[in-house]
């Protein structure tokens, strides 16, 4: 009963690295929650929380989703295109400031 009859010699990464990544993710979540209890300016808070979230997302993609161990071409096809599209979604974002300005006039 082998699930891997097709690839009997497939490489299996050691458990330790995943547990370490998991520990990092839990620790970063703890830091985020601690930050929420500080009275920081909202812009500073946003930048700090988003930076930590991007670090967490990268760890999940690289290790849990295994992208680090795939052939580089897969990451190069998927990631830059995704980041570019998401960046383009911000094109209309400054309009929110105009709306805010109009509503407070």
């Amino acid at each position, binding site marked *: 009963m082998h699930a*891997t009859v097709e690839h009997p010699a497939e490489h299996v990464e050691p458990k330790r690295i995943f547990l370490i990544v998991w520990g990092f993710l839990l620790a970063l979540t703890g830091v985020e929650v601690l930050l929420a*209890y500080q009275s920081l300016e909202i812009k500073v808070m946003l930048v700090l929380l988003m930076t930590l979230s991007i670090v967490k997302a990268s760890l999940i993609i690289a290790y849990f989703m295994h992208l680090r161990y795939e052939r580089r071409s897969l990451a190069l096809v998927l990631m830059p295109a995704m980041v570019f599209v998401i960046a383009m979604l911000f094109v209309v974002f400054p309009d929110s400031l105009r709306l*805010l300005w109009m509503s407070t006039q």
Partner: protein
Amino acid sequence: MASHEAVTLGLHETESMWAGGRSPFAVGSKKLGMWLFIVSDAITFSALLIAYSFVRVASPSWPRPFESASIANATVMTLILLTSSITVVMAVRQAKLGNRSAVAGWLAATMLGGILFDVLHLREWVGLIEEGVRLFKNPWGTPQFGAAFFTLTGLHMTHVTVGVVYLGVIAIGTKRGKYTAEDVEVSGLYWHFVDLVWMFIFPLVYLMSAKFA
């Protein structure tokens, strides 16, 4: 010549890289398909998160309804989701080692995490609804809060629920010998993605709307 080139580049899977090869990314079609879906879904969630932020920035005030109890609840949900990711990693590992019943066990543990996450999140929803939050109405002003909150967290909750069903199908199928290690890995990719999205919803929706800050 072409095959010689391929060998020196270490591209054993492709006959000729420039002819497109047989497998240019060296992954199966199911895995590639799931990756493409994940990229498109990531863009969907990004659009929703950006829309949420847009409405929030454009509003002179934004409700901060989450007390310490809600933040604690959301933190526990985050820990559950992160832990369910590590149980999926274990399931994928066991699948590669060929232990079918261990795969089913780890996937069942993951499903339990997903169900627990849904229950805790629904508790939060019910609390807000009881406080009078509706899609376009709430006691604190800025009526869009409800629509923004429920759409974003609702779509994520749908993903978790679909994931629980998906993992259940894979768990049963793997135990019966119907699915291979690749199928388990592909379902794991989806689950990690659901976890990843929550890593952005949690700070943006909950931590940035804590009442005490």
